[in-house]
């Protein structure tokens, strides 16, 4: 596969080092898994601590982080059983979830990471969760069904605008209020509770996804990519010019629709259950938005993993691997692909609606092609088709987008005396990520084993005759 075998050198170095320590490959493999994990974790964590000591601000909390990682990774948790319950497989997810939930409480006391600087703020964490949800949505389309969607931003935009229509003063001639919170006296427009708006936005976006999918999904591969790109460009333009569609002001044009109501539980729940009445006016605004986003992500993860293993999910993967064979096995191509599209659109729509509520506005200049590529980049970097990979990619890239690049840029400029505006080259960096990942590790950083096999062993559309290998002997014809 290709001529770039760069990552092989990492594993080769590893074996060489082991041999230097007097451990052959056979001997290494004969050790129990826990020992091997302990050795590997020790090596990586030592490397991490050395990096912190050399490039960062040394802090004993770094040791605590390292110990925490080792505690999670090394012991064979999955074998833990309590009576007849296999509780082991829940240990790591539960601990990680606990760490995540408690994040707003300890974020300020976290150490400085080398190069990247401080840990992300809670507001950044909200955005990271929202993008995780979008990336998981795109993962249905790109990762499971293998359809390249370059216009995912259209679903994001759709969700945001549905939220804007159903929870703002946009249609000021109407007076509808279904459980909305934070309304001022003399309010106008349609105001639905955000808990109703989120699923409605998801369903509306899924319907749009189906409508887009029905005529276009019979196209294959790159044609589909370009059509979705077309839709991704048309939707924001409609949003931009939608202040006068046949005399109707639908989107308020370039001004966008603002403000949008926040989610909330209302005064009764606030007084009796101590739940926030209105997120937008809550004292710990970012934290409550973060926890809700975390919940939405959990739901998305649940749906992702359950759907992947369902009949529908297996049909998606079959289509991804070989469309013709899948059709021959009796999978209805159109219906299956449309479901992939609709599911992806649903989560994109919910995420878009939630983001609009968090921003309290939907603006047409948020929805550019760049965002589609940004989300695609998350899926590809993390590992197409693998939930944990996609979550990692989404969190990492959206963190880079909000804080990381600026911090890294400041570090680079401070240490090398340069004056580079790193965030300006953000999308160039994403371009490099796309190219490098595709060339060196097309299955992503945390791949699903199945996707990795597809990329390394090739799939159906592999040529029968290997041109690369036989180039030299054949050479040019004598002229």
């Amino acid at each position: 596969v290709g001529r770039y075998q760069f990552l092989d050198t990492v594993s080769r170095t590893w074996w060489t080092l082991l041999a230097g320590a007097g451990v052959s490959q056979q001997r290494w493999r004969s050790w129990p898994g826990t020992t091997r994990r302990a050795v590997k974790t020790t090596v990586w964590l030592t490397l991490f601590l050395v990096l912190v000591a050399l490039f960062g601000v040394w802090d004993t909390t770094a040791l605590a982080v390292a110990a925490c990682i080792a505690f999670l990774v090394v012991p064979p948790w999955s074998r833990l059983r309590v009576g007849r319950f296999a509780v082991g497989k829940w240990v790591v997810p539960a601990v990680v979830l606990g760490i995540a939930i408690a994040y707003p409480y300890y974020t300020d006391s976290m150490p400085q990471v080398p190069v990247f600087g401080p840990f992300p703020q809670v507001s950044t964490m909200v955005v990271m969760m929202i993008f995780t949800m979008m990336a998981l949505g795109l993962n249905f389309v790109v990762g499971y069904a293998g359809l390249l969607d370059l216009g995912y931003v259209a679903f994001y935009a759709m969700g945001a605008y549905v939220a804007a229509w159903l929870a703002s003063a946009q249609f000021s001639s109407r007076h509808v209020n279904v459980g909305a919170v934070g309304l001022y006296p003399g309010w106008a427009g349609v105001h639905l509770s955000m808990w109703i708006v989120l699923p409605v936005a998801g369903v509306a976006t899924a319907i749009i996804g189906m409508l887009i999918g029905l005529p276009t999904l019979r196209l294959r591969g790159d044609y589909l990519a370009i059509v979705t790109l077309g839709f991704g460009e048309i939707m924001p333009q409609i949003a931009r010019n939608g202040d006068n569609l046949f005399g109707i002001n639908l989107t308020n044009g370039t001004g966008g629709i603002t403000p949008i109501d926040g989610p909330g539980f209302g005064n009764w729940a606030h007084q009796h259950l101590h739940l926030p009445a209105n997120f937008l006016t809550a004292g710990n605004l970012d934290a409550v938005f973060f926890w809700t986003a975390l919940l939405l992500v959990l739901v998305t993860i649940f749906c992702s993993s359950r759907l992947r293993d369902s009949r529908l999910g297996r049909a998606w993967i079959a289509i991804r691997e070989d469309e013709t064979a899948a059709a021959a096995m009796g999978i209805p191509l159109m219906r299956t692909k449309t479901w992939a599209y609709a599911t992806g659109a649903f989560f994109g729509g919910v995420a878009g609606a939630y983001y609009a509520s968090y921003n309290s506005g939907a603006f047409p200049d948020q929805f550019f092609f760049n965002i589609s590529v940004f989300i695609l980049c998350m899926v590809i970097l993390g590992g197409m088709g693998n939930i944990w990979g996609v979550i990692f990619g989404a969190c990492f890239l959206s963190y880079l987008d909000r804080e990381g690049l600026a911090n890294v840029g400041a570090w680079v400029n401070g240490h090398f005396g340069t004056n580079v505006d790193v965030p300006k080259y953000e999308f160039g960096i994403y371009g490099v990520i796309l190219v490098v990942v595709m060339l060196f590790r097309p299955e992503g950083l945390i791949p699903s084993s199945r996707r990795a096999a597809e990329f390394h062993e090739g799939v159906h559309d592999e040529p029968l005759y290997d041109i690369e290998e036989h180039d030299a002997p054949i050479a040019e014809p004598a002229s």
Partner: protein
Amino acid sequence: VATTAHPEAPARYRRSPGSYVMPGLALLLVVLLVVWLVVNFTEGPAYFFTIFFIGLTNGAVYALVALGYTLVYGILELINFAHGDVFMLAALISATMIGSVFHLAAHPSVGSLVPAILVSLVVAMVACGAINVAVEIIAYRPLRHAPRLAPLITAIGMSFILENIAIGWKGVGYTSVPQVLPTGNVFSIGGVVYTWEKLIVVVITVPVLLALVWLVQRTRQGKAMRAAAQDRDAAAMMGINVNRTISFTFAIAGALAGAGGLLYALYFGQVRYDTGFQLGLIAFTAAVLGGIGNLPGAVLGALAIGFIQAFNEGLTWHSPGSDWTQSIVFSILILILVFRPEGLLGERTPEGG
């Protein structure tokens, strides 16, 4: 076995009424388009022709870029997303050549203009040919045998990388080019105006296109290109160095984008890092409209898109206006891909259903 159980057997071969809906809709769209053009024509024939010439000029620039897409698609079946950005770099190179190397100001003398344009043309074509070949070698060649999604994704990545090279070089603002082309009238008959700048664009485009046709149809290398496009494996077995042929195709495509970039810079006078993305999509639409992989089709499609854009932005009677140009172009792209994926002149491909 008795077949009398199917008394209306032939009915199975009759087309269902539903199958007429889509072609009917397509026909309706075309009829509406024709009516709109005719009404606009009768509103002001002279103005209509002036707009027509603007469309012709736009179309000529689009054709040069669209040919690059179609050449690469023909041989690799890959949408070279980076192509529009190669074009943008060409426009920036030309802008630099005209402004900083030749120091031309607005309205220069013919004696200083002609060599400046010719040298800039050669520089832009050579540089962009080289850039395009480099893109192919870095991002596409190692992925020859990967699933088709992979090179498409690296193509998007390269597109962003090239855009950021332009940002690093020229910044995010517009780079403007002085109005060096003469703007006098070639002729003005009954209110129909045709200016020199538009003629010069066509005058540079046509020889480049003719040279391309000669190259592809008459030379040995062109024959190798056509062979590799038809069947890469068979071409390799016939002794064609396929990798070299593909690189050559990228060089030609880049050179065409170079010429297009020069004309764009001279004619429109403003270039920015994202110019190539927008124009690249328009040009790709043109290539699809004409039938991707088909050279005359790309030119035809580019002219059609050029006219559509000019008419949409210029005509007065019920035209949606420039706010909607992009949506219209993409709607055409989607409609073509859905109704006639082989394009106006192309052949049916498996991808198009």
